[in-house]
């Protein structure tokens, strides 16, 4: 038996291919949508992984440091590092800024890390190029996505920083590339005001009789210093000794330090379940709509293709072709269309994915699931056409 579906497709392959490509672009958009979601999850995941922490100690009662603001004194790590099970601690400060560099505006996350000795949690686990930060000031490690080059000098607020290292896939939970700087610099960027504000602040403090008391020398200077110096960080990253129970250490910290501590699992829940929950639903809605649109389009195309063959189908029935053969022909064409569409969709998603500003992660598992869903949709959509074809009266072939 010859393959009727294949012959029909070959006969009008231009139209079929064109339709398949059109469908493919739609499927490509759908796969990209799924990739955007996976990218968001992955952004959260790499943020957790690359921080090198087992516990995050944050301001009491907050979901910090990524999902909510958190501010703690930068000396609480001393108390934590002495606790059983704690191997290493590191202060970290995060803030997202708009950076103008080389005529381009980029949103970046400045990450302040401890650089006094290597191996403190917070620094990028590996570098694509360059070296770690060695100086206590004005050196930076930038994610490649910032577009910065090794050795380049970049201005962040009031100071110029030298890019000494390049990192890869170091992004914030919203996908902004990171720039690592020494903690002190980050604190300055985060908490210091500009000169005018400082002058204003000083004047105001000086005008306050409580701080500017005659006969108490040094009080005004101390008050002004306290107001202009930041001693806060957003979190203390804690690395545990091998074998330590994260939950046990976390609850110790909660109990004794009056701080909130999150384990890796809790942080994943915050970043992946809570932080992107709304976006995930949003994308989920899109996926559902795109699936329905795809189904409608395939159903419509296959239905139209079938109606265009009413006469041929009537002839086939007249000369004794079984319903199975006719239904098979339509089903195969629907699946063929889905196959072309999927191939085109997967390839186009792969091509345009990297051009998206945010990370698009196309998982093979998603592609397989997508393929199965596309094929199922096509099979389902062909049912209308098959029903119409089986209702065709062989007498129509004879006419009057």
């Amino acid at each position, binding site marked *: 038996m010859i393959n009727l579906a294949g*012959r029909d497709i070959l006969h009008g392959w231009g139209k079929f291919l064109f339709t398949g490509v059109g469908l493919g672009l739609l499927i490509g958009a759908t796969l990209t949508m799924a990739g955007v979601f996976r990218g968001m999850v992955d952004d959260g995941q790499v943020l957790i992984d690359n921080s090198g922490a087992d516990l995050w100690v944050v301001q009491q009662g907050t979901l910090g440091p990524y999902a909510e603001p958190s501010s703690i004194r930068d000396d609480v790590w001393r108390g934590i590092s002495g606790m059983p099970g704690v191997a290493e601690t590191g202060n970290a400060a995060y803030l997202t800024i708009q950076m103008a560099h080389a005529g381009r505006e980029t949103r970046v996350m400045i990450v302040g890390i401890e650089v006094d000795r290597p191996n403190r949690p917070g620094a990028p686990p590996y570098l694509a190029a360059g070296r770690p930060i060695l100086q206590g000031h004005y050196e930076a490690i930038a994610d490649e996505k910032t577009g910065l080059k090794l050795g380049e000098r970049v201005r962040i607020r009031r100071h110029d920083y030298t890019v000494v290292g390049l990192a890869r896939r170091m992004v914030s939970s919203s996908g902004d590339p990171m720039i690592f700087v020494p903690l002190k610099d980050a604190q300055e960027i985060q908490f210091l005001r500009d000169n005018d504000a400082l002058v204003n602040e000083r004047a105001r403090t000086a005008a306050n009789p409580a701080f500017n008391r005659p006969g108490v020398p040094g009080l005004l200077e101390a008050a002004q210093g306290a107001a202009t110096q930041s001693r806060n960080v957003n979190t203390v990253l804690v690395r545990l000794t091998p074998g330590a129970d994260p939950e046990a250490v976390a609850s110790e910290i909660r109990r004794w330090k009056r701080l909130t501590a999150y384990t890796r699992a809790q942080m994943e829940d915050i970043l992946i379940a809570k932080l992107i929950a709304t976006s995930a639903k949003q994308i989920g809605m899109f996926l559902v709509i795109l699936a329905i649109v795809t189904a409608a389009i395939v159903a419509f195309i296959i239905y139209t293709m079938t109606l265009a063959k009413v*006469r041929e189908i009537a002839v086939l029935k007249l000369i004794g072709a079984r319903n199975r053969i006719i239904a098979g022909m339509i089903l195969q064409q629907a699946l063929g269309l889905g196959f072309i569409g999927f191939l085109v969709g997967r390839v186009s998603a792969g091509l345009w994915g990297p051009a998206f500003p945010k990370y698009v992660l196309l998982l093979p598992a998603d592609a397989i699931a997508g393929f199965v869903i596309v094929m199922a949709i096509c099979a389902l959509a062909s049912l209308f056409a098959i029903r119409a074809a089986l209702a065709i009266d062989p007498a129509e072939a004879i*006419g009057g």
Partner: protein
Amino acid sequence: MDRPDTPAIRLTGLKKRYGTGDAAVDALKGVDMTIWPGEVVGLVGPSGSGKTTLLKCLGAVIEPTGGHMELAGETIYDHGWKIPDLRALRRDRIGFVFQAPYLIPFLDVTDNVALLPMLAGKDNAAARRRALELLTALDVAHRARAQVSQLSGGEQQRVAIARSLANHAPIILADEPTAPLDSERALTVIRILNEMAVQYQTAIIVVTHDEKIIPTFKRIYHIRDGKTHEEAGEGRAI
């Protein structure tokens, strides 16, 4: 010519009513007809007299509403279908040639013909061999690999005839097979049908209005107001 014992087709009192109630049309009001293997019989009558309806009933394409129908001695219809698989009946025992040669446009000439044996379960090579044999007999073998749309009307009609013969169907029903053809080509088609009838002992009914070909039939059924009466034809040689 000595006749075989069993007629290829025997109809007694065959009726067909379209629709019901006020809208009912009695297209066939009791048709009697006997066709023997190896003969080409003409079926003529004015427009709307029921010629196509009769062919559709014979071909098990529509269901009659009364009477009796026998093919090669087997009762096919007797106030209801008597065999379960009408599509297999059409596939194996009846060949159709329509007014317009409805070939399958996405198959080439050979496969249009070979499709029938394939549907009947023959392997592709055997089916194509059979197709080529018929195309040769009908003088269109040189167009065997052509697309249907590239054939002339007469060539298409000959391919359609080849298709109707492909499964060695003992009966061929041809509804105005010569309508789209000029008279010379029309006569050629009729000559081919006659040759096939003799060669394969096929019973062939040809519906026609064509004055040129009516004289070629040895036997003619006239149909008027849903009833037939038989008449001897001139049987003129082509």
